[in-house]
């Protein structure tokens, strides 16, 4: 087998040194009846030629974004990833290493994470960040747990405008952690301040708000913060950091914990994963954070060095007293985001965000001109917006698909009251021609 260098001769020598005469003898500590029952049903090994053929076969059953112009978002975004990102992420020094336990031979990973932490914290408007987490949904659930642990209260409020994937995961985590998860209603597409005020109480550990929310609408974070009078309540904001190219940061509007998915920043759409959860906090919460953190220090000769730090929070040291059970981070995705943010830089992030903003608004304007589609909520939005259609969203999308377009997300799946709603997303990748074609096709239906 091509990944096993041992030859028959090697095997003989190895067995001899061990003092047994055959490999089977090395498994005699496994009860015979278990071994007997554990034989594998046979499937043949495929060569490289054959696995490529098989993938061609499977791929042929898909219709991918290579063939479809994508106007769908809803938590997974078709942004452009610069070529240099792949180049760096593919370097085997990064790719085939593991958690940087040995700083002397892991400065590459460690420094890249240190840079990542800086960029994430800066974009979020916070003081610190961890080394990344699984995805936006789990990072939000972990933030809720942090709030519960920190405040010793057990109620979490979450806005109904927070994405369904995020709320579902929060529900699961809350149920088992015995957290009371309460939804805050929407008022015309944004969080109802009134409902929020009525629900915040002495048992409230945190308030979770997504902004731009699931419908692309920018929440009034300062207003929400103002409405939470109890200062112990943690204000948790889930955001798309790409929007920071045009919007105020959550940190500058009073967030205590900023979380979200940074897939938008250099990570492929990949049928949903792996993506990149992040978490940023201010100083006083650093030691309460889950996940890896890299810190700066010096070596014995006084040279600046980076190292995993504050490990006393973590499971491998604290075991069941850890802040979380999280062990790995999404290191390679964090690296991709770091390279991506470095390439974009200040100007690039502003330009990408602005192109999304402009193109989304252009699309909205064109699409709602004809009268067949109505903008559901007339509130400031970023790169996504919700329209109500006269027809059935599923039918519309089927027809768009025939014309090579992946239409908007039919939100009725998650919001019963919005069964005619189509959530469209327009990124910097979409050209005016593509948008005009979308509008033309949708008009015809």
């Amino acid at each position, binding site marked *: 087998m091509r*990944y096993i260098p041992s030859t028959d001769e090697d095997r003989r020598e190895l067995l001899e040194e061990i003092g047994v005469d055959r*490999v089977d003898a090395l498994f005699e500590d496994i009860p015979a009846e278990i*071994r007997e029952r554990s034989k*594998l049903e046979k499937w043949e090994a495929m060569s490289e030629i054959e696995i490529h053929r098989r993938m061609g076969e*499977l791929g042929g059953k898909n219709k991918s974004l290579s063939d479809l112009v994508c106007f769908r978002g809803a938590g997974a975004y078709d942004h452009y990833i610069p070529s240099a990102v792949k180049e760096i992420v593919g370097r085997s020094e990064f790719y085939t290493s593991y958690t940087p336990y040995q700083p002397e031979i892991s400065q590459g990973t460690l420094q890249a994470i240190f840079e990542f932490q800086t960029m994430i914290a800066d974009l979020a408007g916070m003081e610190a960040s961890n080394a990344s987490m699984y995805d936006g949904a789990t990072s939000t659930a972990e933030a809720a747990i942090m709030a519960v642990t920190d405040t010793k209260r057990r109620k979490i409020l979450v806005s109904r405008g927070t994405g369904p994937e995020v709320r579902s995961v929060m529900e699961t985590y809350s149920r088992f952690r015995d957290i009371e998860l309460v939804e805050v209603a929407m008022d015309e597409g944004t969080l109802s301040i009134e409902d929020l005020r009525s629900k915040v109480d002495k048992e409230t550990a945190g308030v979770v708000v997504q902004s731009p929310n699931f419908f692309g609408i920018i929440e009034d974070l300062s207003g929400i913060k103002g409405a939470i009078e109890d200062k112990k309540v943690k204000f948790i904001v889930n955001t798309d950091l790409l929007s920071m190219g045009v919007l*105020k940061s959550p940190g500058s509007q009073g967030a205590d914990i900023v979380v979200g998915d940074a897939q938008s920043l250099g990570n492929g759409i990949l049928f949903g994963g792996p993506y990149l959860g992040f978490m940023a906090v201010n100083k006083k919460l650093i030691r309460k954070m889950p996940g890896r953190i890299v810190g*700066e*220090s010096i070596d014995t000769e006084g040279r600046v060095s980076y190292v995993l730090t504050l490990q006393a929070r973590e499971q491998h040291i604290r075991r069941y007293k850890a802040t979380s059970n999280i062990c790995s981070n999404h290191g*390679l995705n964090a690296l991709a985001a770091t390279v991506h943010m470095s390439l974009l830089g200040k100007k690039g992030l502003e330009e990408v965000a602005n192109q999304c903003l402009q193109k989304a608004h252009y699309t909205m304007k064109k699409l709602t001109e004809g009268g067949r589609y109505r903008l559901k909520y007339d509130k400031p939005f970023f790169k996504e917006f919700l329209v109500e259609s006269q027809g059935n969203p599923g039918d519309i999308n089927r027809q768009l698909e025939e014309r090579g377009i992946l239409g908007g997300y039919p939100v009725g799946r998650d919001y019963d009251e919005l069964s005619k709603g189509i959530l469209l997303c327009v990124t910097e990748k979409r050209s005016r021609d593509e948008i005009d074609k979308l509008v033309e096709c949708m008009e015809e239906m």
Partner: protein
Amino acid sequence: EYNKLIFDLSKEGRVGYSLPELDVDRAEGLIPEEYLKEEEVKLPEVSENEVVRHYTKLSNKNYGLDAGFYPLGSCTMKYNPKINERVAENLQMTSLHPYQEEHMVQGSLEMMYELGEKLAEVSGMDYVSLQPAAGAHGELTGLMMIKAYHEKRGDHKRKNIIVADSAHGTNPSSAQVVGFDIVEIKSTPEGDVDLEELKKHLDENLAGFMLTNPSTLGIFEPNISVIADLVHEAGGLLYYDGANMNAIMGKAKPGEMGFDVMHYNLHKTFSTPHGGGGPGSGPVGIKAKLMDFVPVPVVGKKGDNYTLDYNRPNTIGKVRSFYGNYGVLLRAYTYLKTLGSEGLERASETAVLNANYMMARLREHYPVAVDRLCKHEFVLGQPAHEKVTTLDIAKRLLDHGYHPPTIYFPLIVDGAMMIEPTETESKETMDAFVDAMIDIKNEMESSPETVVAAPHTTIIRRVDEAKAARDVKIRYHR
């Protein structure tokens, strides 16, 4: 020596990106003033070539598996086949929005379905959910199902999860996150489950027992069938920590040992790249009795069509967004298909052969924690020495060009060194590593100060970890 941060390369006006010209009319005032950022974005400004050079230089400060031997016990640092990466470049299989309608993603769902079936076959489980993002996340998911199982039966007292003192830290930690109480039991000096200790906790409060087998000491638990019977008789469920699956493929299925639920680490056993700490993937396998509780969506099959089934009333719910770390799954699928069933068994056989060989050669020079037949890894203790510690030995290995073993774990062995060669290393490589270990042993006598001061040849020397935790500096400041 290169020691710049990306921020040090920043200069006003440098760009590293290219975007099309905005081809729609630029509208003003789309967003009310109060929502617009007031400051400039704080990101560095660097050209593409400088970015590439910077991260290329950083990469050169990293030791990866393609650079050399990486016997990090418990992490299964096996070779990551390059075919997996080529397959992952297939845009028809990867450039997919997770909310595309099912009929547009049949190929991907088929792949996931088949992967689940193969993983079930290897583990002897009845169903495998691919959702969890990592091993620890798989534990979380499995434990949630255990909790849901007892609750569904109205068995609300069952709050205890037993873990061995030799277990991975994630075991008790995951149980804690799911709201269980943790009962830690001592192992025998040999690292086996102490049956008498175990029996003390087999009561009506027992929710489950989490076990790694082979254990973190690399030893196959001889009483596994007895343990399974005891736990089941007491009404508990048995959880299998799949970190050590690389030892037993084709030889012992967790399902056949009596386990009810388990997780895999695809990045360990199934060769997906570790990526400097992730992304991993931690599918969860279960016996049929837990089927009601599996996370949604379930990748199902109706006739010739593959489906994403959300309609499961007793599900624990969603444990992460969408359907798991799909990109990782694709690589693991490729691995399973390219090795075939015999290849997997051969991998485990060779991994075990290699570990026993290294243990045999090192036995004379270092104390072996448990001197029995081991499986895919084994644990050495710290040799008696007045000055030199396990940490020193590990650092000295860096000077020999190796990634050291896992150290100080499992906690039950003083100064543990946990060595896992995997099947993808040659005899020559193992011999050279053993020789280095012997050299260091000799050096401990001849020149202990050299060992204590190691490493000497790395680009930096030992890092002051205490300072990092004390003077917390976890970001760059301008």
